[in-house]
Each structure stands twice: as C-alpha cells, then as structure tokens.
C-alpha cells in the first residue's frame, strides 16, 4: 500500500473529531458571553468543605504523626480550592506553594528527626483531655449561637472580583504602583523582617553550640 494514503485517511476520519475537540477547547478558553455560568457550583463547595473538615478530623484523631501530616495536606489543598471558588487565585497558589509545599515539608522533616516509634505506641491524648474537649465544645456553642443570632448580619451579596488581574492588584497593594508606595508596602517590609527573625531564631535554637 502507498504510505501517503493512510495518514490522509486517518486525518479525514478524525477531522470531525478534531474539529469538535478544538471548538470545545476554544469554548473552555474564551467564554461565549461575558457572564457565563460559573464553575463554582454549590456541589463543589460542599465537596471541598467536606474534604477540608474530614481532613481536620483525621489530623486530630490519627495516632501516627505522618498520617496527621498527610491529612493536613488534604485539608490545605481543599481550602486552596475554596479560595479558587472565592475568586482569589493568588492566595490559592500561595496556599499550595507555601503551605503544602514548604511548611508541610518542614513538619515531615521534624517528624523524621524526633522518634516516631514511641509516639506511635503511647497515648494520643493528654491527661486533661475531657477539660479541653469541654472548652472546645463551649467555643463551638459560642460559634453556633453567634451564627444563629447573626445570620442576617452578613449580607448575601458576593461581589465578583476580577480574576485575571487579581495578582496584579495584590502586587499593586503590596509594592505600590507608578512609583508611589502601596498601601501595604511598609507592612510587607515588616513581614520580611519577621521572616528574617524567624530564620535566625530557628537556626540559633537548633544549633548545638553557637
């Protein structure tokens, strides 16, 4: 058989498929109208919040600290997706990169350094855990009563923030724009100083001899 025939045939057979796929992808990238139906449906909200709460329950009940760390990662990623549903993509990216990528690696290293065999055998809860649980239940009752009484205090509006320029606007607030200081530039510098102090403190405390 001639070899040029088969690719042409395949292309002819596949053309409607490719064309429909391309138009489908294009409809994903550029919405047909400006106010298309949002992807953030209530189903995803309940799924993600259920994942977050389930991860939190696993964090405070598992015996092995490594399992707790993995459950905490589930919670962090679910919360990052909740940020995406709130039109905050920059905070979602920071959450995944800094929390799930940085802080959790730090936690896992420390779990590796302290001995895990003993921790996985002895008791999970401290001696006064009923008192602690009662205090937490009191806090939960406070939350429930505040939310039941103050249900109408929170307006139902959700103002749609521009999603594409989100990172740029956060950068304008942090670093300033057009040569002027932003509203949070000084706070940003203080935060960098805080990080420097934290680095020095961590190094000095973990060193054997200074």
């Amino acid at each position, binding site marked *: 058989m001639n070899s040029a025939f088969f690719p042409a045939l395949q292309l002819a057979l596949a053309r409607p498929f490719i064309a429909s796929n391309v138009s489908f992808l294009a409809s994903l990238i550029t919405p047909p109208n400006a106010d298309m139906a949002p992807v953030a449906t209530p189903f995803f909200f309940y799924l993600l919040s259920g994942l977050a709460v389930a991860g939190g329950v696993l964090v405070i009940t598992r015996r092995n*600290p490594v399992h707790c760390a993995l459950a905490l990662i589930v919670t962090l990623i679910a919360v990052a997706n909740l940020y995406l549903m709130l039109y905050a993509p920059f*905070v979602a990216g920071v*959450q995944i990169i800094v929390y799930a990528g940085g802080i959790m690696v*730090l936690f896992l290293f420390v779990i590796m350094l302290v001995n895990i065999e003993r921790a996985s055998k002895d008791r999970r809860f401290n001696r006064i855990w009923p008192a602690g649980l009662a205090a937490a239940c009191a806090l939960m009752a406070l939350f429930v009563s505040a939310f039941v009484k103050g249900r109408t205090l929170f307006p139902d509006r959700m103002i749609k923030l521009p999603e594409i320029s989100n990172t740029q606007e956060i950068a304008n607030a942090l670093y300033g724009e057009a040569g002027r200081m932003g509203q949070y530039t000084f706070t940003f510098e203080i935060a960098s100083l805080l990080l420097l102090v934290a680095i020095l*403190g961590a190094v000095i405390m973990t060193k*054997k001899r200074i």
Partner: protein
Amino acid sequence: MVPITTFHYLVVAAALFVLGVIGVLTRRNVVIILMSIELILNAVNLNLVAFSRMWGNLHGQVFAVFMVVDAAAEAAVGLGILIAFFRNQETINVDEIDLLKW
C-alpha cells in the same frame, strides 16, 4: 440548591477552627499541636478571603498572604524549639514537659 453565600464559608471556617482548638487542647504530641495551630490559621484565612469577596476589595486577600507569612515563621520557630527540647529531654509529649510546674 441554596446559592453559596459568605455565611456558608464562615460556617466551614468555624468548623475548622473548632477542630484546631480541640487538637491543641487534647493532643499530647507537640508536632500535632503545631499542625492544629495551622488548622486554626487556615480557618482565619478562609474567613478573610470570604469577607474580601463579600466587600469586593482585596484587603482580605492581602491580609491572608500576611497570615501565610506568619504561619511560616510560627512553624519554623515552633519546630526549632521542639528540636532543641527533644535534644535535651528526649520527649515531645506535653504531659512530660513540666519543668516549670510545681
């Protein structure tokens, strides 16, 4: 289905906060107590971002970024203290860290 409002996010954040408080008050392992503190900070962050959406400005999101910086500093210092203590006392259980009790 009910549309999702700010209130729904506040309820989820309150649930995460209470779970973190339970973890801080009842667990023995200091590493897991620090993880519970991370849960609490995440609940606060979720509140901040939800209010940012409610008011339609970015101050809540900027504050959430600062909270992440705080959480990183807190985790670094807390775990540093933990390693220094483990080197001295060979334990990381809060029951046995009772040097200042009488």
